[in-house]
């Protein structure tokens, strides 16, 4: 198991992490080029900057969304995001790894608070899955990744908690660490290739949904010609 853990922390981690960094870079470049192309083709070249900015902010801090038709689900999602971002970044053992690898460090969460964050995040992930599968409409529109990702995201949290609390751990430190590292690797590698990509594409998402529907200049004529309804009043 020791060697497997070494492998997960070494080559597998390097692969997954670099793939994430480069993959996100690639997505953002492609998104910008795609937007530029859409804009060049568009007949109506106005960009509603204010609307884009406001909706982006609304999604970044979704306080307003809490008041929609499924407030509990939305709240859970917000909590899930907070736990997801802050726990791993501010966890002391992770900061030690940054310090050792790249020589950079920042303040950490207290031990007990990190435990609370972890458990809350796991609970929120559980809530999200129940909320998605328990509701007929949302079950119907769910893709595979919508259902599979929350449990995968919760896995490093569960195994991380077990690794920090050996008394509760039924399967041995190395095994639990292996699952911890490998599930995190899987998440890193999936980020640029799944809906997790929104961590970098968020600023462009609203822009795409605005500009993507600006039709090319002559598209009206094309449509009427295709439908054989030229010169017919709409």
């Amino acid at each position, binding site marked *: 198991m020791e060697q497997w853990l070494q492998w997960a922390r*070494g*080559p*597998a981690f*390097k*692969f*997954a992490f*670099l*793939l994430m960094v*480069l*993959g996100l870079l*690639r*997505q953002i*470049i*492609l*998104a910008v*080029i*795609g937007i530029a*192309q859409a804009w060049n083709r568009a007949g109506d070249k106005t960009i509603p900057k204010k609307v884009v900015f406001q909706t982006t902010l609304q999604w970044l801090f979704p306080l307003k969304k809490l008041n929609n038709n499924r407030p509990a689900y939305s709240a859970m999602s917000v909590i899930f995001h907070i736990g997801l971002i802050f726990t791993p970044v501010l966890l*002391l*053992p992770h900061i*030690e790894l940054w310090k050792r690898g790249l020589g950079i460090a920042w303040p950490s969460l*207290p*031990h*007990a608070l990190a435990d609370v964050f972890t458990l809350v995040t796991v609970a929120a992930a559980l809530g999200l899955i129940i909320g998605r599968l328990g509701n007929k409409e949302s079950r119907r529109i769910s893709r595979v*990744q919508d259902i599979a990702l929350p449990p995968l995201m919760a896995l490093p949290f569960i195994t991380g908690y077990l690794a920090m609390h050996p008394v509760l751990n039924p399967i041995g430190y190395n095994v639990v660490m292996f699952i911890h590292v490998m599930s995190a690797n899987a998440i890193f590698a999936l980020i*640029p*290739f*799944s*809906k997790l*990509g929104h961590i970098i*594409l968020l600023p462009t*998402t609203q822009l*795409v949904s605005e500009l*993507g529907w600006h039709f090319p200049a002559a598209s009206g004529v094309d449509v009427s010609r295709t439908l054989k309804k030229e010169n017919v009043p709409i």
Partner: protein
Amino acid sequence: MRLRLVKGILWFFAGLAAVVTVFRFFKGLGAVTALTDTTPWGLWIGFDVLGGVALAAGGFVIAATVYIFHMEKYHAIVRPAVLTAFLGYAAVVGGLMFDIGIPWNIWRPMFFWQHHSALFEVAWCVMLYFTVLQLEFAPVVLERMKHPLLQTIYKIVKFSTLPLVILGIILSTLHQSSLGTLFLIMPYRVHPLWYSPILPILFYISAIGLGLSMVITESMVSTWLYKKHLEKDLLNGLGKTAAWVLGLYAFLKLGDLAVNNKLHYLFDGSWESNLFIFELLISAILPTIMFASPKIRQSTGGLATAAGLAVFGFVLNRIDVSGLSTIQATGSLYFPSWAEFAISIGIVSAAALAFFFFVENFFVYEEPCGEKAEKYDVPVADPVTGVRLSWSPLANARLYSLIFIVAVAFGFAMLPDYAVKGATPEKTPVNKARRVDGLQAKTENAALYSYAVFNPERGNNPENGEKIEMLLIDGDRKNKFVLFNHEGHQAKNGGKESCGICHHMNKPLDKASSCDECHRDMFVATDTFDHEFHRDKLKASGGCVKCHKDPAQSKNRLTTTPCKDCHKKMRAPNSFVKIAEKDQTGIAPGYMTAMHKLCVECHKQKQTEKPELAPHLARCGACHQGFEESMLTSLEPYPQEESGAL
């Protein structure tokens, strides 16, 4: 689909090469290659440089055919042949940048002329011919440009086609043969089967044969990829010429062996002889026979096989001359690291991608080639953005960039740690300093004592000096040593009480522990702290919390109980070696660093304190005396004391 698959594979190799490139240039040759001082020319020279130059020979051969011999029917393949040559030379120049240890010094041969150097000719030929190739190919790009200035340049370049072609032929001839000349200066390194006074001629003729084969290969590949009509008539003619050239090459090669009485090497059964026979068969003899038969020349498979064999055979020939044939002389086995293969294949991939780019966007063939895109795909939702748009002209860029970054990440994960962090010295365990009989002498005028190992055969002549017990410090036992007058230093520094000045740390239950007890490696820092030992010892009295007092803190050296809290007498007071509190983590620097730091720093201090007594005390020669290996053969060290330490 075919084209996308091939391009996808090429992009993958380009990605692998890209990541190796980063570490090659930031961490050096040693970090990514298997090259050594005995084998400094490896795969990059053999394959990329020598092979690349030879593969590019098609350019000048076809240009000469059309513009000098006026065989106009070959006009259709001038542009692809020149493009292949141009990209081949670009790959050579790129490969050289990887291989040259200090690539930013590449401009030097332009200004510092070494008329006697074979490499001087090579360097100038590469530079000039690469420039000529750029000018020869420039019209293809310029003719599509509308800017009036570019149009003027286009007309000038087009007008000077013939002089450029002539210049290209001259420079090619010089360059192809000068690469052979390069190996004339190493008759004792290259195996007799490959070494020959006519190497330059052999290189030149084989380059022509290879150039023809390469043009055939390249025509067939682009025909297959772009589903074009195959110019079989042209290839037939090229094959016929290739048969003559390759036949001449084989004849010259065997004739040369016969004239120089080297034929017996051919069948002496060594692996070199087998390699030579294999190489000659696939590079020259088989292709000659195949190209000579009109029936085989007519069949696509036959042409492809013959040309492929020749291309493979001559690349092997260049690798043999520059590398494999030198193994018996150097006795050093070199096998390229995967990173070297990655660079070699990556450069070729990048050149091939550039070839496709020019073929698809310019009039290299009669018209720009390209795959017709499927216009009416069913829209699929993008997994990341969820957008259902498949019109994107970025579809190819999406695919290739994906393959590229996967390759980069994969390559990064595969690179060993030392490639990423830079090469570190090999582990060299330190051996104990030995007590030996030494001679100490001081002449009237000399400021310093001179030392030597006592040699009983030469006798203890009083003029030679005084026989005293000394410490022979040669940590790696590599016949380089320092003789150290331990008793003398002790007496000068204040007798038995002064040990702590140098012996700054005592191991538990020990006094004045020897240097090598903690500084255990010649060059690499080592850890003096044994975690397992402490864990087992302290299990009974409380375990981990004995040292890791605060479980909320991460477990590292800085947050743990310092050694001195338990081992009170570990550090000697008033030592010359002063270590800051935060650095007292139990990591001992390498032996050499530790010795140099201690001795040189102290000598420097003494030198400034009493400049009249010891003006050269801090110089290398004060300690490093008498590098005479014979001294060590007559050496009989005293019995060594066992250390009392744990």
